């Protein structure tokens, strides 16, 4: 299936995780959540195996952060190698972790909830299984904490931005893309998280209610579209428009799901709608990649023009 292949890309499932996991851990057998999940490559209820590449990325980032901070400590302690410090630049760990959670919250919350729902004695059979289960609970706490953290930070940023320089510096990178005068704009990421949690809860606790699943998807997409249209969270108009376009593609793909229920009996119609769905996904990809390239090209042209003007002014004097 095309969508399952794309799912591997959107989940950043790019490494040979199974081989690496087998080498490091000794997991026991665990049952998949359901037959549908098994078909979509969710063949286990083990958290670490379900998280796959995301777990490896998180561990790599942790090692990187420890090495980086040790190196910076050495530079400060021995008062040498400041050119290296400049080369490393600044790193906002909060923003990086939040970006990681935003991109992976769907898979991580699904993996965590599956492990918790299917919890039994096999989850504590050996050290590897126990570690995976504990990690699932820690992950769920982190994922619940992330939107709460964002609500508090957005509130502080909105309230004290004009009066407190410290607040301005601290949250500069966290909310730099959003319209800082509008609190709903700053809370856009919270809506982003909650919508995905809503989808995951529906998938796990109402796995057989197909119509409810589709309508939950449709209504949540419509809500986000209204939110983007009314609040316009981003500073750049083009970005708001493209965010709205992305949601539109999700809405069209969700409407297509209605034909995959017993409501439509004809297999030819389903097959045709399947192509429509692939077309919508392709349109989304082409649109975003084109926009990315156009933005980069515009930036390059502006920079070249600036460089040329500076050179001309220098030559004139």
């Amino acid at each position, binding site marked *: *299936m*095309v*969508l399952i292949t*794309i*799912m591997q*890309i*959107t*989940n950043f499932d790019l490494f040979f995780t199974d081989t690496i996991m087998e080498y490091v851990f000794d997991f026991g057998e665990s049952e998949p959540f359901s037959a*549908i*999940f098994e078909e*979509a490559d969710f063949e286990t209820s083990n958290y670490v195996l379900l998280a796959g590449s995301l777990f490896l990325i998180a561990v790599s980032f942790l090692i*990187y952060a420890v*090495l*980086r901070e040790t*190196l910076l400590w050495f530079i400060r302690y021995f008062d040498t190698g400041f050119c*290296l410090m400049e*080369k*490393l*630049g600044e*790193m906002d760990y909060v923003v*990086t972790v939040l*970006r990681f959670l*935003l*991109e992976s919250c*769907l898979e991580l919350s699904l993996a965590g909830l599956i492990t918790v729902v299917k919890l039994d004695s096999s989850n504590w059979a050996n050290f590897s299984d126990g570690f995976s289960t504990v990690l699932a609970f820690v992950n769920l706490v982190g994922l619940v904490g992330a939107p709460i953290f964002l609500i508090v930070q957005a509130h502080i940023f909105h309230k004290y931005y004009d009066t407190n320089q410290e607040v301005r510096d601290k949250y500069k990178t966290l909310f730099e*893309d959003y319209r800082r005068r509008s609190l709903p704009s700053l809370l856009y990421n919270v809506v*982003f998280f909650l919508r*995905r949690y809503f*989808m995951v809860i529906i*998938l796990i606790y109402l796995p057989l*209610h*197909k119509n409810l*699943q589709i309508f939950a*998807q449709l209504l949540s*997409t419509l809500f986000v579209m209204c939110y983007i249209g009314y609040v316009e969270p981003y500073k750049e108009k083009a*970005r708001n428009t*493209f965010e709205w376009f*992305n*949601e539109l*593609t*999700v809405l069209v*793909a969700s409407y297509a*799901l209605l034909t*995959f*229920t017993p409501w439509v009996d004809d*297999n030819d119609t*389903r*097959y045709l*709608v*399947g*192509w429509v*769905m*692939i077309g919508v*996904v392709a349109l*989304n*990809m082409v649109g*975003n990649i084109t926009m*990315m390239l156009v*933005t980069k090209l515009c*930036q390059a042209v502006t920079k070249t023009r600036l460089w040329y003007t500076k050179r001309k002014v220098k030559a004139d004097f």
Partner: protein
Amino acid sequence: MIVNLLDPKFFMGIKSRKEPKFKENIVIVPPQVNKTNQESIETANKAFRNSLQAILAANFVLNFLMSGLLQYLWGMINALQMIVYSVLFNVAYPPNA
């Protein structure tokens, strides 16, 4: 280490008790460590160099991923996630999708 001698007259050979002859008043002093220690230092140096390379490479990748240029890529991935996770709904997908 290279030592540049300003006045070589102050030096005397241990056995010959004569003033040694230096080429351009430069003496190359070998590292004042034994072989085992030198090997350990070289191993540590190699490990440090590899770690530094790894940190710089990871730093470059992270800065690239966090840059504003990729905002449309993240937008695309977020939208695609919502579409592709609908394969977990209890519906009968056609074989082509």
